[in-house]
């Protein structure tokens, strides 16, 4: 144990510790603005009745769940899901590869797929300590 009590090791540890802090922090800043923009586009597409464009913004598992539990193909099911009409963004929380966008009448959850944000769940409302209850979400 005493072999470790060396200033050189301590200095090296400072350097590596700082590096870890920096790398830790670097991943704390995913592009929340981009996530908010995708959430707004999704609601825009739904509002103007373009189910195909809205479905292109959904992660695959969410689109599949919509088709299995909704009214047929995703473009039709997403429009039939009675999502609230949301336009303005009130705030965004983004961590790693996941984000939550709080809009004026909705909460949208997103994930990074490839290099872009896609919608995992929309039409979400808080449910106490339990997960948000969402009208559209993956299986």
């Amino acid at each position, binding site marked *: *144990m*005493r*072999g*470790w*009590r*060396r*200033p*050189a*090791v*301590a200095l*090296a*540890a*400072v350097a590596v*510790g*700082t590096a*870890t*802090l920096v*790398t*830790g*922090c*670097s*991943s*704390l800043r995913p592009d929340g603005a981009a996530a908010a923009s995708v959430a707004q586009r999704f609601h825009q597409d739904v509002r103007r009745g373009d189910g195909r464009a809205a479905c292109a913004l959904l*992660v*695959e*598992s*969410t689109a599949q769940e919509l088709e299995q539990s909704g009214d047929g193909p995703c473009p039709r099911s997403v429009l039939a899901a009675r999502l609230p009409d949301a336009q303005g963004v009130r705030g965004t*929380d983004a*961590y*790693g*590869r*996941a*984000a*939550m966008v709080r809009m004026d009448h909705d909460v949208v*959850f997103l*994930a*990074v*797929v*490839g290099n872009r944000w896609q919608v*995992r*769940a929309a039409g*979400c409302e*808080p449910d106490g300590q*339990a*997960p*948000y209850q*969402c009208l559209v*979400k*993956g*299986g």
Partner: protein
Amino acid sequence: MTAPSSRSRSRFLRDNGLTLLFAVMFLLTLGAQALSGVALYNQQAVSDGVDPVGLLQYVTSSDFAVDVAENWQSEYLQFLLYIVLTAWFVQRGSPESKSPEDIGLESDEDQRVGRSARPDSPRWARASGPRLWIYSNSLGAVMGALFLLSWLAQSVAGVSAFNEQQLRQLQAPVSWGEYLLSPEFWNRTLQNWQSELLAVASMTALSIYLRQRGSPESKPVGAAHAATSVEG
């Protein structure tokens, strides 16, 4: 005939072998942790319906950072406590402890400081006042700073990793302050602290009766069980 540069290189390796060996083992283990970590992360990602990530993305993620930092902070805490507490607490018979009659900060003569400094003593050990005080506590201070820095890194990376998991499960994220009070933060912290404290207690107690020939962490094989502050 061996070239002088080759001789000096092998002498450097011999003289610094302990640090170099542990540095290499550290890097290999960190690499292996990254490989197993990315596999685990991707297992969870697939079951959450999220894209898997590559190794580079993983090692720059908060998930990797929190797993690294939570172990670092506990190691530095262990050394901080050991360095500071062994000035005041002893274990008779342990080579890691000093003799009971030396409990405390000891005299200037014993510590070779001030007027009792020797020609080869560090410059700050020959000084007096604040400089001597700082140098007299520099090892504990640096270990303490490394502990706090690592613990801070754990909390910062930890809240990010925790919140990513929360969002994946369609739950609201928490603030840094809320995270500091969360069971997740304290469970990660305390499970590391208890293992470090157990290791120190075991080493201190077992080294009274057991020996490792040639190791300076052990007493000489033939040393008496009651002999304290004797290194092999």
